[in-house]
């Protein structure tokens, strides 16, 4: 048998081996990470407990049900968040229609007034309910909003990691972000944000990662503001994917009247 030309061998190898992770671009890594973190499954339901802890150690608590639906391949998403606690905001709900390329549409329902109000949504960097997480941290950002570069590969707590540095294209509250992204599960396990003077600003940590069906979820996470000392700890419970949420849940009817099947 005539030996195969080297070129053909190389081609065969390239086709038959799964694409090695090392071949991925930084953009592709961040894209997979955003998908794993913010878009896993066709839909998701979770009970979310949030603790806002000030530097003096005083704790404020938020308890919510969060529903998310991905609308096909468009990248459009729907979010529904219902507040169970504290007592003063119980029954308040949020609805977000999120689009990849334009500002989200956002509504709030105020139960004491039975009032549905559309809220100006140009605030993805604003704090979510007073926590150290921004709206963007809760519902995701676009890969195109930043430029990305792979810094190195390493291990973090026994997990194989890509360390990626991202810089926002438009000026925002941080100048760069360094992410530790799991090379197999694609979840961010740690993120460090730096301000305009390159001082550490905020640190995100994934404190617990669990598998639900075929999806991995960060079920305990924290965000600490290194400059103010304020921090927020979040626990996801009862996480379920592909439960069959319908698009009509994300409309005014259910904003006013929480869908009993999903919110309890």
């Amino acid at each position, binding site marked *: 048998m005539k030996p195969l030309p080297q070129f053909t061998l190389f081609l065969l190898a390239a086709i038959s081996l799964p694409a090695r992770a090392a071949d991925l671009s930084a953009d592709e890594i961040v894209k997979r990470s955003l998908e794993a973190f913010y878009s896993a499954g066709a839909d998701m339901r979770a009970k979310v407990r949030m603790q*806002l802890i*000030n530097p003096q150690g*005083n704790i*404020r*608590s938020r308890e919510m049900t969060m529903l998310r639906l991905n609308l096909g391949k468009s990248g459009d998403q729907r979010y529904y968040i219902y507040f169970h*606690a*504290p*007592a*003063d905001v*119980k029954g308040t709900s949020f609805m977000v*229609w999120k689009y990849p390329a334009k*500002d989200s*549409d956002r509504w709030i329902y105020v139960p*004491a*007034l*039975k*009032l549905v109000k*559309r*809220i*100006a*949504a*140009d*605030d993805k*960097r*604003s*704090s979510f*309910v*007073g*926590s150290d997480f921004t709206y963007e941290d809760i519902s995701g950002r676009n890969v195109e909003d930043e430029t990305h570069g792979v810094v190195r590969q390493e291990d973090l707590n026994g997990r194989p990691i890509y360390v990626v540095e991202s810089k926002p294209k438009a000026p925002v*509250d941080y100048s760069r972000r360094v992410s530790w992204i799991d090379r197999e599960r694609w979840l961010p396990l740690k993120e460090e944000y730096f301000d305009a003077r390159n001082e550490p600003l905020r640190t995100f940590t994934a404190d617990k990662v669990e598998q639900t069906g075929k999806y991995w979820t960060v079920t305990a996470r924290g965000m600490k503001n290194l400059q103010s000392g*304020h921090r927020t700890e979040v626990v996801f419970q009862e996480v379920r994917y592909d439960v069959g949420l319908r698009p*009509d849940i994300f*409309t*005014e*009817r259910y904003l006013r*009247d929480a*869908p*009993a*099947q999903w919110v*309890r």
Partner: protein
Amino acid sequence: MTGTGIREKMRYHDGPARAAARLTAALLALVWPFGAQAESIAWDGFVQSHVAARTGDVTCLATTECDYPAAELRGQLKAEGKSESGNAAFLGRFDLIRDVALDETRLETREIYGDRRASITAARLGRQVITWGVGDLLFINDTFPKDQVALFTGQPLQYFKLGADALKLNAYPGAANFELVIAEFRPDNTPSARRFIFADPLPAGLPQRTVEPGHGTEELETSARVSGYLDNWEWAGYASRTHYRSPARRVAGSEIVGTFPRLNTLGASVAGPVGKGVLSLEAGYYDSVEDRSGTDPAVENSQYRGLVGYSQQLWEDATLGVQVYGEWMRDYGAYRDTLPAGFPVKDRVRKVATIRFTELFAHQTLTFSCFAFFGLSERDRYLIPSLRYAFSDNLWAEIGANLFGGDRNGAFGAMQDNRNAYVTIRYAF
């Protein structure tokens, strides 16, 4: 108080009592599926202290609460529950108030209703708050009962809306949602001389009474709303067969009688994203059924009403909202011809602009807000600055003021002897 006045007062109290009895019976029928399979009932509530002090040197009538138009301690208890399936639910919200300003103690049923839900329909029966429209503190197609006293004394915003005793039916067949509300008449809580000082063009010293529409079937109020989305814009159409909720007062013999004339309204609203903010538009026609010629000076003339609003985030945690609102009187000539001497003359078009600025600080524990009405045609104003601090999830306190000013013939200017500063403290549990 005259004998007639007492009878009227009796009747006024009798109506709600009968209504309450009917409601209770109906609620029991609605909520019976709870039985043993009901999930546990959730109890919440708060205690709240609220004091508004009149500012400035003002001479009051002996019968008017001069220094503190509002001073009260209030406890609220809320109970709610739903069945396992979620197809039946109820809510009750009751306030016990020790009103130091008026030296009285009263129990108010803010809300009590039962819900039934099916796949594309829902029904709610009982005393319930209903809010329609896209305006911010400006209402066109929302003709449901309101409480101006609560607004003018700085009560938390939830007290600006009063519950209506109503049956609300909803249908959600698909592209559009339909809502039908059948309600008994309930008047607004309008400022009275017990707490407020304002000029009254009607003769002083005459006994006064109001006569409410009866509670017969033919006097029920009906309001309908159809709403939906067009892409990411929301639209709604509204129609109401209702009554004016502030009394139309006139001298009748040796007394002043206030009635609540019939009113029909028809209107529409849209809201959606424009630029970096949210644009809201609402319009409506007020058909003053009992004064279609516009010649009865006691009854409001028919009007077109409209508003344009825009709100946008200025920077992180800071939002600015502006609105321009107009009321266009249809029969202005008839109004001017029949207006008695001594009454302030309204403009053909009453124009009001509003601004709301809100900024949150310290992880949203500190809220600064300023809402301002500017009477563009009446040259008056009403400013409501406030500062709220949440000490914890349970405890907050707010200080603020109600600053009326400008031309005394304007709706806000007429209230300028009632400028006040207020303090509210609430502990929720």
